[in-house]
């Protein structure tokens, strides 16, 4: 039995880097320091053994060489291919994806568009008062979780960085660090909060505006209740925020997927801006996929835009709402699709899934997913963090090297995408 310490968990945006893996006969047999989700990921079985291709409605096993040729044919035959996913793979593979999209003149979009895309739109309007999770852990005496439920979605966030973590500059952090949870429903997270603000669905914008009004001395304008929250509680929460030494607001898709979308996030950023006139306060989106932040970084360096980048004009064009995956699929605009490290059949609205079914689709993923059933080709790859390595960005923008624990015969995403890209260059004479 071999024990490997300080491995990075490739599940959520926390990128916990203190995981211990036990290896026996070239397989991971146990984990330590993982949450239930990370543990399930490391111990996951049922990998697809070889590439598969749908022929006359039936799956047949094929070789990697055949799979790569088929993928090239599908993508080069398309007029408007969509390359989607990218949050479940490492940065090096994302780079190849962007290059590939440029020569294809297609659209490249990541799962950002259906998680924190609206947060990026808000950040582009008013900036991002962020900091690293280390600052939060060691300094923050007030935490706000707004529209997120870390106990279910980022299970170790509270123990590594906030509620249950020690802080270098804090005395008795566990007792003295206060936690405010804002949500439309009671959750496991709201149950451990010092203060729970329960908002009526769609009321986030109004509550943020009310808190900002109180901070600016205009509390008398606020009615007795705003979106189900009493004025007394709003005044109390504004006071808690104003008088803390260092506050950190974390928010989830409760803000980005509800009415108001990016305007909710903009108001949250401006609330933090107002608080910085009284104390130190920061804001961090609770990014979901382990490397969704990396997908935004890579696309930003390479194209100038963080997601939903359209190259049909020969230059990068970005217009979320038009060039985002859900909109392109709903308009039945794309005529081929490549999915890398994502499962849109499980997460997209029904009409988008119907369009995925109706066009040629390639899936690059280690496992048979729900999208597989509707695809025409799947190429299995190694799992980053298990038998492949690469760069990933944590939810606070810190890049980490995701190491591999075991060797396998599976090629990495980068290897497969590079092979496809090289043949495309050759065919196009580039």
């Amino acid at each position, binding site marked *: 039995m071999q024990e490997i310490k300080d491995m990075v968990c490739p*599940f959520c945006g926390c990128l916990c880097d203190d995981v211990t893996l036990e290896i026996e006969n070239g397989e991971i047999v146990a984990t330590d320091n993982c*949450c*239930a*989700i990370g543990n*399930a990921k490391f111990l*996951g079985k049922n*990998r*697809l*053994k070889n590439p598969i291709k749908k022929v006359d*409605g*039936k*799956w047949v096993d094929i070789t990697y060489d055949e799979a790569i040729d088929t993928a090239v044919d599908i993508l080069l035959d398309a007029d408007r291919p969509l390359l989607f996913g990218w949050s479940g793979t490492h940065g090096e593979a994302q780079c190849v994806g962007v290059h590939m999209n440029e020569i294809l003149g297609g659209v490249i979009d990541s799962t950002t*568009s*259906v998680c924190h*895309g*609206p947060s990026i*739109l808000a950040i582009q309007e008013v900036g991002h008062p962020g900091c690293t999770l280390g600052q939060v852990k060691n300094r923050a005496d007030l935490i706000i979780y707004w529209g997120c*439920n870390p106990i*279910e*979605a980022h*299970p170790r966030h509270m123990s590594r960085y906030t509620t249950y973590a020690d802080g270098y500059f804090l005395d008795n952090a566990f007792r003295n660090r206060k936690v405010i949870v804002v949500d*439309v*429903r*009671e959750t496991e997270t709201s149950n451990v909060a010092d203060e729970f603000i*329960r908002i009526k*669905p*769609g009321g986030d914008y109004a509550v943020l505006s009310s808190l900002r009004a109180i901070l600016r001395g205009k509390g008398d304008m606020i009615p007795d209740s705003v979106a189900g929250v009493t004025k007394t509680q709003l005044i109390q929460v504004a006071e808690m925020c104003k008088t803390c030494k260092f506050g950190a607001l974390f928010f989830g*898709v*409760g803000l980005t*997927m*509800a*009415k108001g*979308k*990016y305007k909710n996030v903009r108001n949250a950023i401006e609330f933090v801006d107002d608080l910085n006139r009284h104390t130190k306060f920061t804001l961090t989106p609770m990014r979901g996929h382990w490397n969704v932040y990396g997908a935004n970084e890579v696309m930003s360096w390479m194209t100038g835009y963080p997601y939903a980048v359209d190259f049909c004009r020969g230059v990068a064009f970005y217009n*979320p*709402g*038009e060039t*985002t995956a*859900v*909109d392109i699929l*709903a308009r039945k605009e794309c005529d081929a699709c490549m999915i890398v490290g994502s*499962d849109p*059949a*499980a*997460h*997209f*609205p*029904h*009409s*988008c*899934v*119907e369009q995925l*079914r109706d066009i040629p689709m390639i899936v690059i993923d280690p*496992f*048979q997913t*729900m999208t*597989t*059933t*509707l695809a025409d080709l*799947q190429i299995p790859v190694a799992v980053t963090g298990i038998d492949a390595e690469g760069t990933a960005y944590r939810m606070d923008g810190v890049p980490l090297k995701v190491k591999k624990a075991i060797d396998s015969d599976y090629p990495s995403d980068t290897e497969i995408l590079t092979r496809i890209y090289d043949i495309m260059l050759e065919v196009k004479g580039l």
Partner: protein
Amino acid sequence: MKFILNSGRTIRQGKYIENKLSQGYAEETSQCHIHPLDLLELGVEEEENILVTNAIGEVVLVAVADEGLPKGMVFVPYGIHCNSVISACTHGTGMPDYKIHEVEIVPTSEKRKTPVELLEQLGGVRYAGN
């Protein structure tokens, strides 16, 4: 009865994320959490099936009592079940209204479908080779 549908991550749904064709995932994503008083008004007992409909589509889910929800709101874990009634309209933002969709709920004797059955209904084919 009319409800607001809210969808989101649960830890059990997350555990099955790399194994979505499993029974565990099917059980988790076909649950519909409802306030107990709403269940009473619907005339539905816990673990009985309900039909969720709107202009987009319909889906059969199983009722789970959840006192943490406000009356008038239901919560369904992310997955193909809840997406059956989610519109692709993004209001020009790229993001559908996953957290706030109006739906109608009635009791039903119909059976729940698994994700695989829903995909097969769409024309999907499961690879049986592994």
